């Protein structure tokens, strides 16, 4: 089932060589990722799909440089990754907004680190706040926002620093359909105009197909890539497009099998309650 990860002719912006990760938890060791190799071309949009706990977030953490792989190496732009870098930005699954900063300051945070002058910083931040439709909430604090609003602040914060590689961990999970739709279009246009490289984790197969050049399907326990799909559909893509829906259906089938091969194969437990 496992397809070989293909190598491109142009040098990959991101290269993983035999990267694996094992956690030593209170509950014994968990092999979150089996050794995995992967190349990502500059400007590629890669979507990661897979059952819960299959190591998608772990993979993004490794690429972001927040965790060190148990084996193997990660290369970004040909240089080994030893820590976070301004070329890669990770958007966390839970947002991880700073509660002591208001919305504007949160969005400005990354820009301030680059030493951007105040005026430009404010301008850029405002553009991104507007882009995620939080105009009017610039001075609100995190705990005053709804779940979806927080997620949008996190998106604006990550995009504001304009990194070469964007690592997005379920960024649109808490968004309503319409905002999600808008954000898709927004992200796609940013990606197209700036040729960023995007690694995008989602649970929504159609979202993956609508956005990705490539879709990687993971299986859990141990985490590994079990399938890879190239999506050559013309852009902009519509979620209602027939070809897209078909492609999504194929991936869903693989995904189901991936899930079945990991822990979901366990006998359904008796009806509790």
């Amino acid at each position, binding site marked *: 089932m496992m397809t070989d990860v293909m190598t491109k002719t142009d040098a990959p912006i991101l290269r993983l060589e035999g990267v694996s990760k094992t956690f030593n938890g209170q509950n014994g060791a968990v092999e979150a990722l089996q050794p995995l190799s992967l190349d990502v071309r500059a400007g590629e949009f890669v979507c990661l799909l897979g059952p819960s706990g299959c190591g998608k977030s772990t993979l993004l953490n490794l690429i972001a*440089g*927040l965790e060190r792989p148990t084996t193997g190496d990660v290369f970004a732009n040909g240089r080994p990754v030893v820590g976070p870098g301004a070329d890669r930005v990770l958007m966390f699954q*839970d947002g991880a907004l700073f509660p002591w900063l208001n919305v504007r300051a949160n969005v400005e*945070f990354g820009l301030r680190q680059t030493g951007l002058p105040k005026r430009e910083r404010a301008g850029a931040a405002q553009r991104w706040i507007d882009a995620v439709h939080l105009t009017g909430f610039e001075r609100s604090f995190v705990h005053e926002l709804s779940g979806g609003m927080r997620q949008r602040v996190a998106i604006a914060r990550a995009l504001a620093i304009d990194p070469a590689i964007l690592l997005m961990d379920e960024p649109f999970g808490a968004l309503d359909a319409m905002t999600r739709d808008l954000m898709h279009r927004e992200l796609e246009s940013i990606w197209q105009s700036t040729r960023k490289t995007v690694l995008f984790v989602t649970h929504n197969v159609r979202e993956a197909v609508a956005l990705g050049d490539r879709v990687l399907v993971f299986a859990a326990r141990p985490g590994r890539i079990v399938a890879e799909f190239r999506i050559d559909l013309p852009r902009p893509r519509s979620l209602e497009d027939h070809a897209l829906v078909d492609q999504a259906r194929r991936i869903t089938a693989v995904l189901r099998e991936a899930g079945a091969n990991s822990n979901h194969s366990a006998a359904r437990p008796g009806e509790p309650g």
Partner: protein
Amino acid sequence: METNMQQAPLPARAWSGLSIGRAQWAPWARRIIFFGGLFLTWEMIARAGIWPEYLFPAPSVVIGALANGIGKGLYLTAAWVSLQRIAVGYAISLAIGVALGLLIGRVRALNETLGSLVLGLQALPSVCWLPLAILWMGLSERAIIFVVVMGALFSITLGVEAGVKNTPPQYVKAARVLGARGLALYTEVVLPAALPAILSGLKQGWTFAWRSLMAGELLFYTLSLGNLLQTGRDLNDAAQVMAVMLMIIIVGVTIDQTVFAPLERRVRARWGLNM
């Protein structure tokens, strides 16, 4: 959308003004009742005559002593001298303690070495520092301030360290991927994330600055609260001892109510820690 945003604020502001007004009086009423009750109980116990008055004076007697001391100008001068010293000593402790706490809290090797040492040093009573104060600072204000710093510094360090250690790692991770490095990571993320916890360390440090000041002022006699306290004890003047205690408590409560409590309230509101 513009109109939607502007619609809401108007009634709400009037509203919040009202509720703040209400919220500001109730605590003071509670405080007055509480401390009033406390004094009353104390007065009653003292008057019951279980203990000799010269060891356990009634609050009325203590307040008499206090009023007398203030009237003669002695207590206020003393308090002023002591307050200046504690302000300087506390400021120094704050600056060093915050830096030290940050380092110990985040650098593991320092934690294992310097961290333990700080804990050990903190256990030393101020009296241990008196000879070294004289040795290093001579008979001067600096010697007293040195003792204050030695008393408060480690407490603040430990408080900051604890706050910093308990920073949710998620914030640090987010800051790192957003490009925060070195000092900025500390000043812009670790410190603010830990601020609610650090504030409590600063509060403790403040009180220990007092304790050390009382010891440090015994280095040599100058008109100060520490010496009034000691003189009171030397003269077996329980009323004077308690009057000075009362002054310390009053200053402590005042500083708490005017500096720490509002600061804490604001920080907690902003951090979303209020329930």
